[in-house]
């Protein structure tokens, strides 16, 4: 017996783990600082609209007149597992961006495994819980596409027109551990922008390019983004599907997805310097804590250590880090 999914990328990952002590450190990032807001929310029945309005204000985001695409994380449905971005968070985001004067607030997702996105949105409560869902939603797996030149070592990538036409893509992600990438947050969530109709279910071509490289390339390809990470109930252990619920009671927001994800990692007790896609993306965003202007709650006051599978134990943030 042997293994599958993405042999070459996994081999690269294994080699990367073995060599992690010798890896180059993250870049100090672009000039200036990045603001990241941590907002406390004890449950999904909290006033999430209020929290998000505050977070957006703290991060200085302007959305008036923009066509906004909300990109939740919809993977599979299990009523007992917090796999997907909670419907309350997505519904609140719709209300917030409309209140702030967005020209249009759309929702799009292209799940990596499931063919029937429509059924998944119903199971996850999106159809019932989000006003005018049918009008807003596009199955990005089966959207019309346009070729965008240059993606890692391939000549180009086909991407959905709904995403390419958006003025702002809001990655409304879930705070989860990930058994291949270490953590899945606002950047890894961008995988759902890649159309299954071209690349399949799963989007195995990205695995062969390299999961970390693909995450970074998607981040580069979509520069107008904002991150909202649903960490009210996250997932730890064997995420992103088979892990356990982990109550973090936070929403993390920011314009710099690298800084948002680095902050989330610190909240989860994961060392962001050891997350390969953050290291690779560090020239375009801030990983270093000293370059992130923390707003709202502090990391120290909201940090909840997420359990890691033994294979990911090396990612643990050392105390005081």
């Amino acid at each position, binding site marked *: *017996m*042997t*293994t*599958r*999914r*993405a*042999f*070459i990328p*996994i*081999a690269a990952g*294994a*080699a990367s783990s073995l060599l992690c002590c010798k890896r180059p450190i993250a870049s100090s990032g672009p000039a200036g600082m990045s603001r990241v807001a941590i907002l406390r929310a004890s449950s999904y029945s909290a006033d999430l609209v209020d929290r998000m309005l505050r977070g957006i204000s703290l991060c200085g985001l302007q959305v008036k007149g923009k066509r906004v695409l909300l990109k939740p994380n919809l993977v599979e449905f299990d009523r007992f597992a917090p796999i997907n971005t909670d419907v309350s968070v997505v519904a609140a985001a719709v209300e917030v961006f409309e209140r702030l004067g967005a020209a249009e607030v759309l929702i799009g997702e292209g799940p990596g*495994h*499931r*063919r*029937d996105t*429509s*059924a998944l949105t*119903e*199971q996850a409560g999106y159809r019932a819980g989000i006003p005018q869902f049918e009008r807003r939603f596009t*199955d990005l797996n*089966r*959207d*019309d*596409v346009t*070729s965008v030149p240059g993606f890692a070592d391939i000549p180009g990538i*086909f991407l959905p027109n709904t995403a390419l036409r958006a003025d702002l893509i809001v990655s409304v992600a879930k705070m989860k551990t990930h*058994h291949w990438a270490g953590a899945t947050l606002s950047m890894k969530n961008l995988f759902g922008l890649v159309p299954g*109709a*071209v*690349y*399949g*279910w*799963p989007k*195995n*071509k990205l*695995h*062969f390019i390299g999961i970390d490289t693909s995450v970074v390339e998607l981040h580069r390809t979509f520069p107008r983004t904002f991150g909202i990470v649903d960490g009210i109930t996250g997932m730890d252990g*064997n995420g992103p*599907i*088979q892990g356990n619920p982990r109550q973090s009671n936070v929403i993390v927001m920011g314009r710099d997805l690298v800084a948002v994800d680095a902050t989330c990692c610190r909240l989860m007790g994961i060392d962001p310097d050891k997350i390969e896609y953050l290291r690779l993306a560090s020239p375009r965003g801030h990983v270093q804590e000293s370059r992130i202007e923390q707003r709202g709650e502090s990391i120290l006051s909201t940090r909840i250590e997420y359990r890691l*599978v033994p*294979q990911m134990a090396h990612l643990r943030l050392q105390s005081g880090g």
Partner: protein
Amino acid sequence: MREVTRPRLDYLAGIQNADGGWGYFPGKESWLEPTAYALLALHPSGPHQGAFERGWKLVRSWQLSSGAWKPAPHVNEAHWTTSLAIVLHAVRGVHDAALERGVSWLLGVKGAEGGALARIAGLFTSSLVEFDAGLVGWPWLPDTSSWVEPTSQALLALKLAAKYVHHDRLPGRIAMAERMLIERRCRDGGWNYGNRKVYGIDLLCYPETTAMALIGLKGLAVPGLAPSLQLAARLRADSRSQLARAWLTIALQCHGLPIANEEADLAPDVMVTALQLIALNRVLG
């Protein structure tokens, strides 16, 4: 023609694009996948022969010089949907050079996990997921790994094409892909995208991929398939996904099981409408 099928056929013909194809949703650009399913649905219908011929002509124009089909007019990638084009040729009874080139291309493509580099990689990662890398099927795109759905689609295509095309490699590829699907079946008896276990933990099947695998295994007489067919019947009864139910109906038909067709609302999803018609008219089973 059954009363229930006529309004659906009319609807499908009515949303055909000007180029002769169908998008995944009405008004969207044409893609091979919904176009192939729409044509399979329209094929037995007399009143829509004009629509069928326009679509057929379009599909024929999308074959690449390699023999593969591209998935959409501006996506010039050799693609798994080649299998659907082959199924369409076989169901229509067209045996010509285009079909032979398509089958040759398909027989030349296999999952990258069978290669030497992949096998070496497997030595480093034996605790992640489990499967037998010696059993190779078909990928979504060339030079990537085999997965359940493209393997199942290729199996159906080759089994149907075998009536017209004789190729030394054909029986061997069919036999190995069938073994691959059986080996990658989840513990619950169904199939997901293609990983039955991660970190030693069993993964659950999905209704739609369980259906696809059973369609690919059409004609395989294996006693161990009975629990999978029973599971498929249960999934069909329980699933809220119209797409999954349509595929599961076709899967059960492919294995000769009596299925009562359901009355379903017209879906805005072209594939769902087309697959419901394929099930109602028993095009594949």
